[in-house]
């Protein structure tokens, strides 16, 4: 049987990749996708814990996280569309009205 640590390690790796994506990319959509990756990494941990703890709570949490992620995506994409209509760009560092 694949032990818990293998899943946890993979989850941590995916989470870290997501963080690096958020930190290094400029395109708002790609940053957003990186955040989705982070949330999914956490979901993997939840399911793995649920399996090894003989508990279903972790699986239920995954539902909640998915719902919240879907809500965030809906709002986020709406914001991105709104910003694109006004500024014609989705690169986070090209909109800098508020710097300074």
């Amino acid at each position, binding site marked *: 049987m694949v032990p818990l640590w293998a899943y946890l*390690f993979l989850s941590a790796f995916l989470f*870290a*990749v997501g963080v690096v994506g958020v930190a290094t990319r400029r*395109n708002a959509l790609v940053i957003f996708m990186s955040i989705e990756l982070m949330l999914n990494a956490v979901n993997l941990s939840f399911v793995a814990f649920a*399996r090894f703890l003989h508990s279903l709570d972790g699986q239920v949490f995954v539902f909640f996280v998915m*719902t919240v992620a879907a809500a965030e995506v809906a709002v986020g994409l709406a914001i991105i569309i709104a910003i694109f209509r006004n500024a014609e760009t989705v690169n986070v560092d090209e909109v800098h009205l508020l710097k300074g």
Partner: protein
Amino acid sequence: MEWALFLIFALVAAVAAAGMVLQRSPIYSALCLILALFAQGGLYVLLHAELIAAVHIFVYAGAIMVLFLFVIMLLDLRPESHPPVQFNRVGVLAGFVLAGALLVELALGVGPRIILGPRGPYDLETLRMVGNTQAVGRVLFGEYLIPFELTSVILLAAMVGAMVLAKRRLE
């Protein structure tokens, strides 16, 4: 057998995730992420969470990522002109911090130092008897009824808000 499957899925997920960050074109990033999500669905099946796996594919691959692709196409985003990975301060700092945390977890995690909490009643035997879907349903609509209702409020707020923000004209 289980190890082999795990390694395949894990490798695909890891490579695809890295690909998502490294790809210059947003659409390829999205495709990489979809691939990673599929691999993750496979891992859920390995963890005996079939319901989660199906819902995961349904929601992420079937809905969320379609929306992403839709917006990428709507805005007709072409590949970024500058190299995707730039060494700005914050990024490098965060990357290092996370890599550090990751290594710590790796070093400690492989060893026996991870201690799991007390076990619950749902081992595989029980789940097989009750049925995975039924068991998850009972917990979701029983113990977790209130958070469940709360998510419906969150979705409603998000739905109304998305419409307010993205609609072309408001009366």
